[in-house]
């Protein structure tokens, strides 16, 4: 019994370990997103304006907007991350317009990926922070 144990240990110990590779997953935006929180110049506007019908629908590289509100963009267009695994930059290019690159965060909140966008739809000195959440 002791001999068997030693042999087993030696056999296992001499096996080459399987290399484990951890790959950071892509950060997909695909799907429909809704607004769950809006801050204007530090003031919570979420329940003071009707943001509930707004939707932004992302496909692989395009987006469409339903029921617009004051937002970064009001026209449909293309979007992209600079790096799908480690996005540092998110750009929206409305049809016929120039690329807009808002300040953004992409945190996981209560198990759900959120998208936080900071931008100025009107005057530059007015900062809006929109938190969006996927519909499902």
């Amino acid at each position, binding site marked *: 019994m002791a001999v068997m144990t030693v042999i087993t240990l030696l056999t296992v110990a001499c096996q080459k370990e399987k290399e484990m590779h951890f790959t950071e997953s892509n950060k997909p935006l695909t799907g429909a997103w809704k607004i769950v929180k809006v801050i*204007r110049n530090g003031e919570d*506007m979420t329940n003071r304006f009707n943001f509930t019908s707004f939707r932004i629908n992302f496909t692989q590289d395009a987006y469409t907007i339903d029921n617009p509100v004051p937002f970064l963009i009001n026209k449909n267009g293309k979007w992209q991350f600079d790096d799908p695994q480690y996005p540092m930059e998110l750009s929206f290019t409305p049809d016929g317009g120039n690329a807009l690159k808002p300040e953004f965060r992409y945190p996981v909140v209560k198990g759900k990926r959120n998208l936080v966008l900071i931008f100025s739809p*009107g*005057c530059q*000195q*007015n900062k809006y922070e929109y938190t969006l959440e996927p519909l499902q």
Partner: protein
Amino acid sequence: MKRLLRKKNFKQLFYLTLVVAIVVASCIEIRGVTHPNTVKAGDTLTIEVKAWMDPYWTQPQSRLIIGFMAPKSWNARENMRMYYTSSFANGTMSPVPANATPLSSSQKWPEAIMERVGIGGNYINDVEWVVFQSDIAYDMSDIAEINATVTIKVKAGPENLRVKLGYFSASSGQELSEPKFYGKWFTDCLEVTDGLGELIDFCSPQISAVQPSSATDNDIITLKYDEDAIATDLSGADKVFLCAKAYTTNNEMIEVCSQQPVSALTQLGGKKWRIDLWPRSYFNLREDQTLDRMEYYYTDVTGTIKVLKQGNTGDPFVFRFNCQ
């Protein structure tokens, strides 16, 4: 043993006295601010702040912190210079880094100051704290008290207004855990003349105010109606509506004046009312239309009672859409 006990008691009493003295004493104060009562829009305003500090605690590598509260339209962070002369050292000051926080705080400097000091006696909160720090950090541990004169040169914004400017002083090496660890001061009303637009009076109760004070038709704007500012025929009404005419840059007029829910103000308590709207949607603008201004008044459910600039009389209120 008795002697020992007495000695121990004496020691305890000494430390207790020291603690009480430290708790009661102020450590950082603003002891006066001087500036003219008026300034022309766009001119440089020179302000002197008398700051005092008694740094008896350990604070190596500390910077003098000075906060200045002004209307957002002044863009003071970009349009202000600051320097100090003192019994300890002289030097220049620069804006704190955008993410800098007071010692042991998770709030950024402007937020931390706003929470502790607020906006003083101003009635419109379209103001901001802009925070500067000395360019040089000093070891200010256990040194004699410092009297500093901080000179602020700031360009007044473009709008006609009256405002109470605010001032704040602190040390980067000290938590803002108690009021004794920071100084604050609000001056009497300063008037900006020869500028753009209607007078925005931060110093007096407003029948009506718009926030943000600088906005385009693509911002969300908040119109506030305060019954307490002046008694009118609308005082005590249980419903208040907005009646507005918007004028485009091509001078087209669009009127929205109805007793429909979309124009109804929300009552906030304390006889204060509010409506939040997105002008592009509210006035149903075409893509090629841009708003120049909005003229408006408040009315009742019948549409016969009107609250105007002077209360029951006067012209409608005016809000100009611009980003100055």
